[in-house]
């Protein structure tokens, strides 16, 4: 698909993601504050193409008569902030720890990798529950929490690549010419670690959007009335039989976001071969 014009496998998911982000953050402003207000007279109105629909509520309304389009987009603000923010945090933390573990090795390596194993052994939801109970569930808290949920993968990928690059002959040659560790990391290791971590970042966004949804669904996310895809689904579950659209739109958004994030990751991996084998080995499907 490449070489002849543009690479659709890369640009389609990227385009959809950008569109989603823009819609979620700009859309509610265009729709005006009124649409998000409760209007008990307009409860559970169906989407526009079904009988009983209300004008100006194209995706229907929820149990409080709020416009589902506005709610879904507003919910996206939280879910995407948390998903993208935490993925970025996780990759940054992972790159630092991975470089330390893989490049310098020794006891740092043993401590970090043991930490990763122990961390994975803890049930994350229990930790999240405890954390939310103690410090509440603002967006920054959720981002930190999910950063903790996602740091292991980028750490492992970075460590494996750093370990390999460090012993490549051309890195040894540069060391043999008197290069400092900082030079070697900046000049030879980072350029190989970065593209791989962009791929990991993509996959992590997808994974964390799902986890954020799950936390919110369980009531561990942002507190209502602030919407997030997860708590909209939770709120809509009792009406699944009568007003399926409450659950459907946020669920659809989660699915689209995750598929696009993963497709983007796959396309990037195909584009930069560097680290592809490492990522394949570390990502357990």
């Amino acid at each position: 698909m490449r070489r002849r014009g543009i690479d659709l496998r890369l640009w389609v998911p990227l385009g959809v993601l950008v569109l989603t982000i823009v819609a979620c953050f700009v859309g509610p402003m265009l729709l005006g504050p009124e649409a998000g207000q409760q209007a008990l007279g307009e409860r559970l109105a169906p989407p526009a193409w079904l009988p009983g629909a209300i004008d100006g509520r194209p995706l229907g309304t929820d149990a409080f008569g709020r416009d589902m389009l506005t709610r879904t987009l507003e919910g996206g603000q939280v879910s995407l902030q948390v998903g993208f923010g935490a993925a970025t945090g996780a990759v940054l933390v992972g790159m630092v720890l991975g470089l330390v573990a893989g490049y310098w090795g020794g006891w740092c390596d043993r401590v970090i990798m043991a930490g990763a194993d122990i961390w994975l052994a803890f049930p994350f939801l229990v930790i999240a529950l405890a954390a939310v109970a103690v410090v509440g569930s603002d967006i920054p808290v959720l981002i930190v929490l999910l950063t903790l949920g996602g740091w292991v993968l980028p750490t492992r990928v970075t460590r494996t690549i750093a370990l390999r690059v460090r012993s490549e002959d051309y890195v040894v040659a540069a060391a043999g010419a008197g290069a400092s560790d900082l030079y070697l990391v900046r000049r030879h290791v980072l350029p190989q670690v970065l593209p791989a971590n962009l791929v990991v970042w993509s996959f992590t966004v997808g994974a964390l959007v799902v986890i954020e949804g799950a936390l919110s669904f369980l009531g561990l996310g942002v507190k209502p009335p602030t919407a997030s895809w997860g708590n909209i689904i939770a709120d809509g579950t009792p009406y699944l039989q009568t007003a399926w659209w409450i659950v459907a739109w946020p669920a659809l958004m989660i699915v689209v976001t995750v598929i696009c994030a993963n497709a983007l990751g796959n396309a990037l991996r195909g584009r930069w071969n560097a680290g592809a084998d490492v990522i394949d080995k570390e990502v357990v499907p």
Partner: protein
Amino acid sequence: MSPVIALEGLAKGYDIAGGARLTAVDDVSLTIAAGETYALVGESGCGKSTLARMAAMLTAPDAGQVSWSGQTVSQQRRSAVRAVRDHTQFVFQDPAAALSPRLTVEEAVSEPLRIRRRTGSRSVADLLDDVGLDRSMGRRYPRELSGGQRQRVVIARALALEPKLLVLDEPVASLDVSVQAQVLNLLADLQAEHGLAYLLIAHDLAVVSSVADRIGVMYLGQIVEEGPAGDVVTTPRHPYTQMLIASVPAFVPGERGERPRVVGDPASPTERRTGCAFATRCAFATQVCLDVAPPRRELGDVAVRCHHAS
């Protein structure tokens, strides 16, 4: 004048899985003079590459001492370490792995100078000239070059800091036959031009005999025979050297099949042993070979570690 490099009693071991210890290099001493090519010959696992890396200060020895033009270096002194970097450079076996895929030829050749933040007396173009590459190659990436061209780039990079000694680890083993000779001749020209000393690591005695002034034969971490190349090749004293020479294809059809048989695999470098490491494969081994490690003995210009050589 002190030799360009002197190794004294070098030893290096590695801990390997299962708690065993692998003795890679065991009490090796050698010296190389300016303009001289010293070739280390041996089979895989004999420790020659580990020795080469210690000579280039890429690996620290467990015991023993290396002195570069009379200077010994404690690892702490940064300026002294850098002096060694200027003094000795390393040329790798696989030129594809020795060049970063992300750097152009020009960037690769100038990298040592960039690292040291200084300008060499020779420009990148001069260095490319030296190794017989067209200046226009400077913009290319390694993947656009042939194996022979890549190895020339690696050599040019090694020359950038104007070293006195090049450590060459199997520099032609991965190249096509018709290109090997070009690179070997290039190395000889560079040596004549710059008065370089070479420590050449090789497994191919035929290659070694045509380029080396002196040859050291390594077996399981020790130099078992060392001397002027002509003596070692024509009158090998150590049974292992004799076996190596017998393994070189005769190249004259019809001579085949009439050479001493070669037996056994090299013993494992992890095994603890008393006596001579080669005894298990040696046709002349006696009880003393199994009991007592043979000391280094001088026989004229040649030094041998064998109880029975004469």
